């Protein structure tokens, strides 16, 4: 008897909750439906659909997936096109994700990273009427409907190496990478050559630790995730006397940033050079120590390719980002501008001109073939 009373009470309380919920729904759900003939604002809507498939890093990787995605978003805003994007959680997702993009009626599908190379090639061969673009990878056997978007990052990294060698007070600069793959080591090659060029020109002996260009071997985290390891490596470099560090490891750069901030709090003067995007903007936590950044302007490249395809001007010639076309660049010095002497700035400008004209040759085993 007692039991059934309790059960009744329980039911009663549940009914009460339901009533409250229903009332809340009633109160919030009374608005008027929007008229179906809504006026479209902004750029004229187009039926053209551009799509993007990330690699397993995801669109929030603060690196090339994110930059590429920003380019896609920008195109939607500027060109009034439709977009679809899918994230890959694992290497095994690439093929099905690409297929689903084609099935969704994408005119151009942008894939991000060398990991998607084989899948892109296979799907592009099977769907000759769809267009594809792939960031940071080129394969001479790609079919005619794939446009590779690659970067000769060594050119901008060369400037960064020259800048680092010229601003270092201890005469030692350092770099480390995420994984020993071409898109990473191309930064390190350029950086190494920049330091060497400075030594030659000025008769100095600034040392680089963390990368040996001849042996193509150096210090690596092992992946692009272990931020703590990036911090440990950077502390090690600082202990060895380096005062400028170039982490080429995407989000792991944050570990280097926090190690340098800590060192700075203890009175050691050290600086950071960011990669891929302008770190002053994308990693503002470390803006007080970011000297400059080796930028790959992927968003612009993606938007250009999408715009060309929309205007029926698609071609399969690789887009190679260089200092000349602004695809790669050395970011502004921002807060650390006073730390860079005026001489250095003019030398960098001249050096940039020399690289563009070909007077100074920047060579890396990992540079994209033209």
């Amino acid at each position, binding site marked *: 008897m007692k039991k059934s009373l309790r059960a009744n009470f329980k039911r009663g309380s549940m009914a009460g909750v339901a009533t409250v919920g229903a009332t809340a729904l009633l109160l919030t759900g009374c608005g008027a*439906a929007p008229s179906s003939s809504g006026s479209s604002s902004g750029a004229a809507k187009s039926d053209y659909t551009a799509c993007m498939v990330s690699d397993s890093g995801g669109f929030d990787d603060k690196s090339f997936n994110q930059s590429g995605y920003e380019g896609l978003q920008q195109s939607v805003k500027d060109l009034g096109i439709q977009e679809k994007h899918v994230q890959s959680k694992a*290497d095994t997702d690439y093929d099905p994700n690409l297929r689903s993009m084609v099935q969704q009626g994408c005119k151009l599908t942008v894939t991000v990273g060398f990991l998607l190379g084989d899948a892109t090639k296979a799907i592009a061969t099977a769907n000759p009427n769809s267009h594809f673009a792939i960031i940071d990878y080129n394969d001479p056997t790609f079919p005619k409907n794939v446009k590779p978007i690659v970067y000769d990052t060594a050119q901008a990294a060369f400037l960064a190496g020259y800048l680092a060698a010229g601003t270092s007070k201890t005469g030692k600069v350092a770099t480390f990478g995420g994984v020993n793959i071409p898109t990473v080591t191309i930064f390190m090659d350029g950086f190494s050559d920049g330091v060497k060029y400075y030594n030659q020109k000025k008769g100095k002996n600034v040392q680089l630790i963390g990368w040996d260009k001849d042996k193509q071997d150096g210090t690596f985290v092992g992946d692009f995730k272990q931020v703590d390891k990036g911090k440990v490596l950077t502390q090690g470099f600082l202990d060895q006397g380096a005062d400028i560090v170039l982490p080429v490891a995407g989000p792991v750069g944050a570990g280097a940033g926090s190690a340098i901030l800590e060192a700075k709090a203890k009175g050691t003067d050290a600086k950071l050079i960011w990669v891929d995007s302008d770190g002053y903007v994308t990693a503002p936590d470390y803006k007080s120590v970011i000297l400059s950044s080796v930028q790959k302007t992927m968003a612009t490249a993606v938007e250009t390719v999408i715009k060309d395809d929309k205007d029926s001007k698609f071609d399969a010639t690789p887009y190679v980002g260089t200092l000349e076309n602004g695809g790669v660049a050395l970011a502004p010095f921002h807060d650390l501008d006073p730390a860079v002497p005026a001489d250095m700035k003019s030398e960098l400008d001249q050096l940039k001109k020399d690289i563009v004209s070909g007077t100074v040759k920047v060579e890396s085993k990992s540079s994209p073939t033209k």
Partner: protein
Amino acid sequence: MSEKTTPEPAAPAGKHAAKEPAADSPMQASPVEDVASGVVIDTAGGNIPPSAVPSSSQSGSIRPGPGDSLLRQIFTGNAMVSLLSVVLAIVLGGILMAVTNPKVAATAGYFFAQPGDLLTEVFRPYAALVQGSIFNWAGTDTAAQLYPITETLTVSTPLICAGLGVALAFRAGLFNIGAQGQIIFGALFGAYIGFTWHLPVGLHLLVVIVAGLIGGAVWGGVVGLLKARTGAHEVIVTIMLNYIANFLLLFLLTTPAFQRKGSTNPISPFLDQNALFPELLGPQFRLHAGFLVAVLATAFVWWLLNRSTVGFEFRAVGANASAAQTAGINVARSTILVMAIAGALAGLAGITQVSGTEKYLSGGVAASIGFDAITVALLGRSTPWGTFFAGLLFGAFRAGGVAMQAQTQTPIDIVLVIQSLIVLFIAAPPLVRAIFGLNPRKKKPTQGGTAGSKASGVKSGAAA
């Protein structure tokens, strides 16, 4: 599901009863409670440490008491809990998607003016999930319409194979977290044979499969050996071996032996055409003969567990290792053997990856299959065919998740959330039963057991 009703190992049960006769009588006095939990966890008064394997996935179980109606057994049984867990997870996942979708909030504002809008927004992701995993009603031709179901079968193939490996170890009382490493080893061995050797059609694939089985068996067998000889806990050992396998793979992919010629990226060459599973439905579908191998593997595990002496010994060890030992079963041998077979099954999953869908070896060849396999085995209650269907369900989630993300831009992570919720609910059967009002009520020993339990069984059956 037929193996559910087969008699459990008699020898250890008999020993058990002889050792602790008192334990038997309370079981019969309140059978309802025990049937509900499905399992008796026997720690011999604290002398045996409790197993890491969830009780619902262990071998030990007792037959339902005589007083239970068939209906009640079905509704309080483990299969029902699995089904209800899936239902609950899907409902919760739906709520989560609805709450986080700004369009839902927008349409909720005028719910009473146009209720259709809100409902469309709420159900759109799941519609896309079905459209991407079973049947695409928007497809222009038959091939496009049937593509989703073939994709589900393709994606579920490695999940089933690896899930069987985990389930088999569960039945022997071992928590095999190492499926991930065993998949990698299977893929590593198989892929190497696949791209270095050049053998005739048929033979090459066979050799690749055998190599994969050996690779997985070695990596699994090491665990069994360490457990049997030194008592090292299999959970720790398998987790560590996963790391070793993963980093070994990453290292090997940077060596000339494994790296593709002319490439500095960590990707292996393509496997020989002869080393690949034949496509079952032509090149526009990814479905390959590996799926048939997964079906065969399921049948094999069923036979092994329910019809073979070795399988009987596995289950006996899983039910009570000490009792099995007393009954004359070589526990060490069983432990090594079951881990080797479990590893071989996971290795087979690796082969279905490299010879089936991927066609080359990369650092992410195993994706998260080894960990999803644990979920699959749990959902399948460690029974071979249960694991098979759980694998199909998870394959459908995976395949449908792609379409859901592409069509409705719902984050793919929601699929992981649903999978995790399923595991959460399966781990807590009383919670699921409580939510659906199926919890067996405790009977007073003085009451007439039969009539009462029958009545409550029918009642809860009607309620559901």
